[in-house]
């Protein structure tokens, strides 16, 4: 019979130094889940193992724990050989796999307590009127919650803040539920602001790992859209700057295309490069690198120059749809005027805006939007681009949330990095849909810099664990934020275009030799 090896993190509070991994070998059975494995170990090998379970079909959330570092429900997770089972992260361990989740539940009930309204609905003839769309939303999203607290265990902000000022995703989800309930008259939105609504990184790690498939992150963003006053000052300043100057930094329009000086770019062409605010003002080198790569395709590359404005996603994230629409219309007008067939971005945020938000707000846009990583991976796969580095190094890739979890682009950047010669590509343990957040979180890097830096440091430590000397990412905000924490650790952070451009030169040199 096939056998499995399982390592379980044991801990007995009554014994000194008892926190250790124990290895068990069990026979594999048909349709075996992690819960079955634990019950088998408990029943036949070791009766001292403690773990919680209850309904065994994913409707109570009692058996939440970590399997190979991924917080999940034991009753729904398939067993695998050499798997590591640990208690749920971020919580105090009582014994073995049993954690104390009481505090989180009480906070939940205190912060987002029951319906608040002056009277009771009393009628024997018909039920209280709730519009169908709202009822559907409540039942399909927040009501599905099991309070298993997997979201609290996966949240990068909770991992650093430990509920000190940030109340955690499940509490914000419950507040959203109350705020969206038409019967509720409590001031849920302001409460949410006080409980750390703006400390949410919007990284959507909770949405990706929720056992009930609730889109927690989008619920929280919906709650932010209801905020009228109480935004962090930095967010307010950035948004005003976007409305006035077309970029969140408040720099003048005239400096926007300074990076393109001497690059001979036209205003019209088939291939349009949308640089975005970060590349235009903060990282001009990224914009230049992107152009260098684009030129390799042989097509004429155009830019919008000073007529480009912010893509609008920071406004959309704050629910300023009206203001965002001005910016969006401006961009769409200019893009149409350029006569481009394809639009390339090097920023993950801009990419998501064009791909997801623009069609939602103004209907279809008449241009094919791709991210630079997709374009380059295409070239690499076709063999049209040779990439190599001069000195051998070990690198890793950090998935930006806007490109990864939101847009599901995981493979393209990896294809590129694996194709670079003389480079050893390694994965961090938290990758793809489980990727850790850079800490930037659209606005968190400016509104809560301490939190942002802590989250970034954690991400850097993940890179150190696997021995990577460089981290490549494909979002300028990730690059900015990771860079803050990486400097002191001697780790280099690159935006993908920069890294590719660097590898490109070597590639050409080799050919010329």
């Amino acid at each position: 019979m096939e056998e499995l090896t399982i390592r379980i993190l044991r801990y007995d509070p009554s014994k000194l130094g008892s926190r250790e991994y124990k290895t068990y070998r069990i026979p594999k059975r048909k349709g075996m889940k992690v819960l079955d494995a634990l019950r088998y170990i408990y029943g036949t090998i070791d009766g001292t193992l403690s773990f919680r379970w209850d309904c065994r079909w994913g409707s109570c959330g009692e058996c939440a724990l970590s399997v190979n570092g991924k917080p999940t429900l034991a009753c729904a997770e398939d067993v695998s050989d050499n798997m590591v089972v640990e208690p749920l992260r971020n919580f105090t361990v009582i014994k073995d796999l049993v954690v104390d989740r009481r505090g989180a539940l009480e906070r939940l009930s205190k912060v987002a307590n029951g319906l608040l309204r002056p009277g009771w609905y009393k009628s024997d003839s018909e039920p209280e009127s709730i519009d169908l769309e709202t009822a559907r939303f409540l039942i399909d999203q927040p009501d599905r919650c099991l309070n298993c607290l997997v979201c609290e265990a996966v949240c990068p902000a909770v991992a650093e803040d430990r509920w000190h000022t940030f109340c955690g995703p499940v509490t914000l989800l419950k507040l959203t539920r109350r705020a969206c309930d038409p019967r509720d008259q409590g001031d849920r939105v302001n409460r949410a602001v006080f409980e750390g609504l703006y400390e949410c990184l919007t990284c959507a790690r909770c949405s990706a790992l929720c056992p009930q498939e609730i889109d927690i992150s989008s619920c929280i963003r919906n709650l932010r859209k209801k905020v009228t006053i109480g935004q962090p000052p930095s967010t307010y300043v950035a948004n005003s700057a976007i409305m006035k100057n077309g970029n969140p930094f408040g720099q003048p329009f005239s400096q926007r295309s300074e990076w393109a000086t001497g690059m001979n770019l036209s205003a019209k062409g088939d291939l349009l490069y949308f640089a975005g605010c970060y590349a235009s003002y903060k990282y001009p080198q990224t914009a230049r690198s992107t152009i260098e790569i684009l030129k390799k395709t042989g097509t004429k590359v155009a830019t919008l120059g000073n007529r480009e404005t912010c893509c609008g996603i920071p406004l959309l994230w704050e629910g300023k749809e009206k203001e965002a629409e001005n910016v969006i219309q401006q961009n769409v007008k200019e893009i149409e005027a350029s006569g481009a067939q394809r639009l390339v971005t090097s920023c993950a945020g801009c990419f998501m805006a064009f791909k997801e938000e623009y069609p939602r707000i103004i209907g279809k846009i008449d241009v094919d939007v791709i991210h630079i990583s997709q374009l380059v991976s295409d070239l690499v796969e076709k063999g049209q681009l040779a990439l190599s580095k001069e000195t051998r190094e070990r690198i890793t890739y950090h998935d930006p949330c806007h490109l990864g979890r939101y847009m599901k682009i995981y493979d393209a950047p990896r294809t590129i990095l694996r194709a670079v010669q003389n480079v050893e590509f390694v994965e961090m343990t938290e990758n793809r849909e489980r990727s850790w957040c850079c800490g930037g979180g659209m606005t968190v890097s400016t509104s809560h810099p301490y939190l942002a830096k802590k989250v970034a440091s954690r991400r850097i430590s993940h890179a150190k664990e696997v021995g990577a000397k460089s981290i490549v990412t494909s979002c300028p905000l990730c690059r900015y934020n990771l860079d803050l924490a990486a400097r002191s650790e001697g780790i280099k952070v690159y935006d993908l275009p920069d890294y590719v451009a660097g590898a490109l030169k070597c590639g050409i040199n080799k050919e010329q030799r």
Partner: protein
Amino acid sequence: MEESLSVADFDDVLRTDVLIVGAGGAGLRAAIEAAKHPVDVTLICKGRLGPGGCTPMSSGFFQAPVLASDNPETHFRDTVVGGEFLNNQNLTWVFSTEAYRSLLDLENYGFVFERVEPNKYMSRHFGSLSQVRGAQNMNAMSISATLIDEALHRGVRILEDTVITSLVKSVDSIAGATAVDMKDGRFIVFETKSIVLASGSLGQLFKRSTASRYSTGDGLALAIRAGATLVDLEIIQPLPLSFVFGALNGMTFSPAEYFGPKVEILNRLGERFMKKYDPVKIEFTTYAALSRANFLEIREGRGTINGGVIVDPTKNSKDEAMTFKKLFYRRWKKIKECYGEKAANWDEPFEAAPTMWGSTGGIDINEKCETAVRGLYAAGEIVGGVHGANRLSGNSLTETQVFGKIAGDQAARFTLKAAFLDLDQKVVKKERNRVFAPLNRNEGVRASTVKEELQNVMWEKVGIVRSESSLTEAMRDVSHIKEEAIPKIVATGKSKTYNEEWLDAIEALNMIDLAEMIIGGSLMRRESRGAYYREDYPKRDDRTWLRHIVYRMDSGVLSTTTRSVELQRLKP
């Protein structure tokens, strides 16, 4: 010197006016209602607060006459006819008249039922009902969450991971209770004026069951030891189709009618065997009849290698498969997890086996939820008599809310007039010794083994199909376990912190008593009625058996008698 309680006898004394046992729908509802009075309310639950009991596991159907075309009388009639007249009609009447109000209460606490129009609930028609009825929200966990919010908001003290081990009486009234905190092994003595038992049913007595891991019937065993009477405990409802392996083993996926009009249930030989048992309705017969047929086919060796029959929905159209996915997404997901995507999309047949659902019998109460013991109240699935011999779909959630509310209210009202009574120290000391014995023994039989043996016996011999011979055998096996294993039951780990084996041992001591009772009662009831089926007496016998079986315990000796059913409102 033995007169006063010494420190060694207990670790904590907690004084509270109302003690509520169980954090499922009924317990939480009772806590909310009790907390509306000026009394101190404590709720204890065996697991973590939140997933308490079977409430989160229900399909979220809440039966109540919500439409203008419906009324409590029809709901009452459906419930009594469905229960084959074994109902306690006073209770069923309260149940059906209060159902709608308790549904409104839930919405007032913040719950939302699905709507087809802004002010019209999405009601459903079940095969067994005469009317379209009730409301639903598939996320039954949300009911618990709503009630927890409300209970905490109202200042109910909630103790998690606390197992109640005995009820302590003074003469014939409740004086307190003893409990163990599984988090640190503290032995807690509660001084209380009244207790509401809402600790659910005994599904875990059977190997295959849909019940929560914590549904081991503790409350039932405690109540009968304290002098309360139980009724019709022998009637346990089966469900026809459940998963056959993995963690989901024994969990139901849905009744046959969800799998489209052309679903076929086959045995290993490919025979559509239901034609033999019910030539008219075939697969769409009652849950009980289908369960019985499935059980018999498997027992006769015509089941699959995993011990199931085959559900074949492949003859249905694609549209119907998509509707199933849309309407029952959670079940679809579970079928996918267990049998794969093809089976979930009805592209290939899959296996299923019958399972145990819940008991309709339980503690005998009156309309005020009072038991035979003064100060002891009961609510929820632990109560017997509301559903007679067969519980209809969706009535279980309604039951928790209706009787939870009454029990909480009545217990608090009683408390306002009652005084704290003295606890008998000797009883507490004896109880402590009993509870700690498995921990103090060094060798013996492991609690989990005892539980497993018992579950096997109960499933095979006292399960869906029973007979004189199977029951006699079961009685012998259970007595054997009781004599050989129970006195030697041991927890191998000695840690007092969340010691799962210790919990298993405490539960096993209750389960063995209940098993004996169920077998005794089954031997007595020589007929078949509703969910209850005796192979040797396959007919309903209204002339002799329109009677409740009543269980009592007098100084440790179990007595089983019968009492005729009162047919105040509706006669067969």
